[in-house]
């Protein structure tokens, strides 16, 4: 187990290195830079800025400098906002993003899975039809439409929730709903199809033939076996949700990192792009590792073994 973990962490470091390298050179391959804008800077000022941030050096030199810096967990200063470091930028935006993201994750699990179960158990009857209808809408309607429509309805017309910000606890309702709507629908559909398949298994008949009560049959024998695909998607979903969404953070004016990420690209804020990419990649890899560990707990047939090269 420890050997496996060590190996996985080693592989994650290698992957992260590849991501850093690739992003760095791709980013620099795109014409333009942080200090290029419609309003031309005086050549002396531009040169001074480039020299200050080391952008006058050859790209490989910049790359090595950057590697040296992130090796000590310093993601560097922002090129766009003087005096702001990327570390502090992430630290400032993360709590907001994390809070809404985790609430959204809870909604996905707490609503998606039970809805899927209800649908599967009532296959082709009205609860199933209803859940699948709503879930299809949820998958089909983009989050910004959900966000604007609910904003208009519940904040503007009915005044039940504030239109922006998270100062009031009611402010969480709409962004969390807009964030999780798609994934609730997705997970409900997945749970339904997975459970329907499990219900057909021979061991489910065995469980009933043993005289077990319907609840035992469903929860002890059925659910665990049908949750494997759900857990698989949940890993990337969690990574996705806790790293924020530009659209949602923009519409609800939330000071999260999802917005920072997109702004950093349009700003050509090199260190911000790199920093947030590394941050997202790291969270994704950690989530995938957690999913792999959960597999073993859910399905004893899966064994963690070190890859033998």
């Amino acid at each position: 187990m420890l050997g496996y973990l060590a190996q996985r962490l080693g592989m994650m470091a290698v992957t992260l290195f590849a991501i850093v390298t690739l992003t760095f050179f791709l980013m620099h391959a795109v014409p333009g830079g942080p200090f290029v804008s419609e309003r031309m800077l005086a050549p002396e000022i531009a040169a001074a800025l480039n020299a200050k941030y080391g952008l006058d050096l050859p790209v490989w030199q910049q790359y090595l400098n950057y590697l040296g810096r992130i090796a000590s967990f310093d993601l560097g200063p922002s090129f766009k906002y003087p005096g702001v470091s990327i570390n502090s930028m992430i630290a400032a935006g993360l709590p907001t993003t994390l809070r809404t993201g985790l609430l959204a994750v809870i909604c996905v699990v707490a609503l998606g899975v039970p809805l899927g179960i209800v649908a599967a158990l009532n296959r082709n009857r009205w609860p199933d039809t209803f859940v699948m209808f709503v879930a299809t809408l949820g998958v089909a309607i983009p989050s910004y439409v959900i966000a604007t429509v609910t904003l208009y309805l519940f904040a503007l017309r009915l005044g039940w929730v504030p239109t922006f910000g998270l100062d009031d606890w009611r402010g969480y309702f709409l962004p969390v709903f807009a964030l999780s709507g798609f994934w609730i629908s997705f997970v409900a559909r997945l749970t339904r199809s997975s459970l329907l398949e499990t219900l057909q298994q021979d061991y489910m008949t065995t469980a009933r033939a043993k005289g077990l009560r319907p609840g035992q049959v469903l929860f002890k024998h059925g659910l665990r076996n049908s949750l494997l695909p759900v857990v698989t998607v949940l890993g990337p979903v969690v990574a996705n949700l806790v790293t924020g969404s530009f659209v949602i953070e923009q519409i609800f004016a939330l000071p999260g990192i999802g917005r920072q990420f997109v702004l950093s690209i349009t700003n050509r804020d090199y260190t911000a792009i790199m920093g947030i990419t590394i941050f997202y990649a790291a969270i994704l890899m950690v989530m995938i590792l957690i999913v792999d560990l959960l597999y073993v707990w859910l399905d004893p047939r899966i064994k963690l073994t070190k890859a033998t090269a």
Partner: protein
Amino acid sequence: MSETVLSVRDLSTSFFTPRGEVQAVRGVSFDVRPGEILGLVGESGSGKSITCMSVLRLLKAGGRIKSGTATFEGQDLLSLDEDALSDLRGNRIGVIFQDPMTALNPTITVGEQVIETILRHRRASRAEARARAIELFELVRIPSAATRLKSYPHEFSGGMRQRVMIAIALACDPQLLIADEPTTALDVTIQRQILALLKDLQQRLAMSVILITHDLGVIAETADRVLVLYGGLIMETAPVRDLFARPAHPYTLGLLGAVPDLRDDTHRRLTPIPGSPPDMAAPPPGCPFAPRCPHAMRQCLDALPPLFGTAHQSRCWLHHPEAPKVAGLNEVAA
């Protein structure tokens, strides 16, 4: 003790599929007597498994019992409410399924799968249930029982998994054991062990067993009495010796002709039965075997024959007093 353990009368079960009603079982009646092994034999689709799954109301989606009764310990299983029926399942009636690879839950230890059955039906503590599970594993001869309780199904061979299934089925000392093709998915050598085990347990525990199989060899070795099913109907029923010594139905005769005889050195060719089983979505009005029967008469295509005889019964017009005599076919005692 009453004369019969289970008494099935006029059982009909259909599956409702997109292409129409498939009449899997069409009016089957039989009794299971105390302490006997009743063999149900027939090819795939003959209705043998569906008959037993109907009795336990464990039909897969689309299956519906249309008529009949199944009396067990004074109660009709087919009209009992679900709660009362589940009190009997796994308790008074044990079931073993065909494929031990898929019939055990892959994510739960085999011990827990036995223990949960005991805890469902008995007032027992976990420790008592565990002790009973070890006892059961020893009964079905799983070596080092106590440690194997913690194993998962995939850590067992097919034969061992079937022993686990048997242990589960016997967990609460059932009066009746339904074994649905218990050896079909196993190697031949393992088949013999499992059959010997079943027969031994049946005698020691004085249970009645319904043994479903398509293998006449298994029947000959294990069963006391046999029902031959075809097209959802009982075609012939007889004590096992009678069935092999004096087969009365052309279908049974056909089945026996398709079994190799190792002692026969005349190099006799096996005789397959020509044709294929009837389409149960549109069963023929007459005898379902008539289109494949070498002795079929006009009568056979038009009208379904009744079961002739008493102890040894056969559903064939040739047993009618006015029917022509056919060589090789035995009479049923009137």
